[in-house]
């Protein structure tokens, strides 16, 4: 039965996402063809070439069935960040040294090794999987249980961040519709469902009946732990968010566009 559910989800993905992919492609094409159109000044011309017009139409009707909910959640998150998370983050930053925050980040990153290892493997990036293993061994021992990252600083082996959403993307599965998650922010159908897959091998997530639940004792503790990980990371990226959104005409399409471009970049890498 589970197998059928899985197949159904995969089927659902491929259908929705083919559309989304086409829309994405046309966006780049639209800009390109319009620059070319600009060469002969037909940009201002009412009867200019039909082609780039078609692209522009496709871009307009981007598939966003949950736009009402998404917009609400974007504003909710934005308010939450600005009025709760950022003030707390600034406070946290004044009472902790940078090295401490880095070590906390390193510790979490190190234990998320199974996710990166498995997804590099699934994408047949064997070299990356090997390097991830080397990183895990070095950082868990010499790096004092992952608090430090000598693999990066001494051996120059960088982490190869991959998750299941990127794995699906790598094999041509598009994002599906846009979906804003409470607290965690922008996502899409593919990446949200993929989270559930990654949780199965994430040591920080408590799963009823799983034989290798590492640290937390129940589900809510793992949520708390994850939230702390994000909070620790966000506290050093407050300015980045503020600078990104400060000149926004409308943060909803801005954050949506940035998320989609960013995921595309991560998948292409």
């Amino acid at each position: 039965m589970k197998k059928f559910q899985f197949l159904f989800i995969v089927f659902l993905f491929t259908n929705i996402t083919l559309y989304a992919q086409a829309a994405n492609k046309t966006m780049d094409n639209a800009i390109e063809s319009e620059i070319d159109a600009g060469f002969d000044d037909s940009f201002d011309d009412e009867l200019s070439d039909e082609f780039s017009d078609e692209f522009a139409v496709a871009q307009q009707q981007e598939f966003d069935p949950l736009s009402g909910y998404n917009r609400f959640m974007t504003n909710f998150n934005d308010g939450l960040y600005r009025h709760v998370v950022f003030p707390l983050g600034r406070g946290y930053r004044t009472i902790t040294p940078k090295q401490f925050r880095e070590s906390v980040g390193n510790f979490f990153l190190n234990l998320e090794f199974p996710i990166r290892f498995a997804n590099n493997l699934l994408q047949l990036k064997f070299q990356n999987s090997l390097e991830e293993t080397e990183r895990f061994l070095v950082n868990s021992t010499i790096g004092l249980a992952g608090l430090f990252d000598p693999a990066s600083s001494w051996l120059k082996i960088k982490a190869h961040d991959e998750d299941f959403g990127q794995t699906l993307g790598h094999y041509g599965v598009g994002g599906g519709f846009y979906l804003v998650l409470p607290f965690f922010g922008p996502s899409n159908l593919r990446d949200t469902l993929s989270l559930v897959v990654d949780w199965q091998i994430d040591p920080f997530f408590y799963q009823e009946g799983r034989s290798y639940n590492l640290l937390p004792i129940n589900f809510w503790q793992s949520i708390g732990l994850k939230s702390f990980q994000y909070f620790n990371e966000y506290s050093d990226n407050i300015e980045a968010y503020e600078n990104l959104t400060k000149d926004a005409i409308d943060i909803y399409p801005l954050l949506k566009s940035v998320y989609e471009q960013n995921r595309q970049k991560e998948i292409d890498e």
Partner: protein
Amino acid sequence: MRDVRKSIVVLFVAMFLALPLMANELDDLKITMQSKVDEIMKTLKNPKLLQCEQDMKISQLADGMFDYELMAKLSIGKRNWRKFSASQRKEFIELFVVRMKESYTQKAHLLSDEKVTVEDAVQVKPKRVYLTVLIHGSKNNTDIKYKYYKDRSGKWLIYDVEIAKISILQTYRAQFAEVLSSKSVEELLHELKKQKIKKISS
């Protein structure tokens, strides 16, 4: 027959001549960018200049490199551009150019303490060149990709900038499309006029 052979020879000669020319053009773009980056860094580190003087200098340095007008048009897109009257087009371009310049000079201030290098220019199409500038951070590097196109007079101008692979043009395009899907051109212009560019936080 003779003519055909002749034209083939001419074609080959032209191709060989064109190759080094192309390489030179790419080098020129890199050299220009390097000198601009150097000037900007010098300006930012000059303690005698007030911030507004620095801004002015940086803005002047950037002026000849960008095709702001094309950026303005592309940010709206062809379909929506038709909804603009002639005077609205003029007004929008003016507002957008001011916005671009301010946003660019402000972002330049973030560079003051960083090491910046200019990478080799890459030609992706006959009339498109990408030039990457790397900002070396303590943990990882940020890349800024300047996208050039060749205009009708043969000059290379920037039409889009990607910061860490996020295209400025695409983000504006998404926003303007969203605003124009529910509001009029007049309302968009009003919104742009009302909104002052805020100071950057670091």
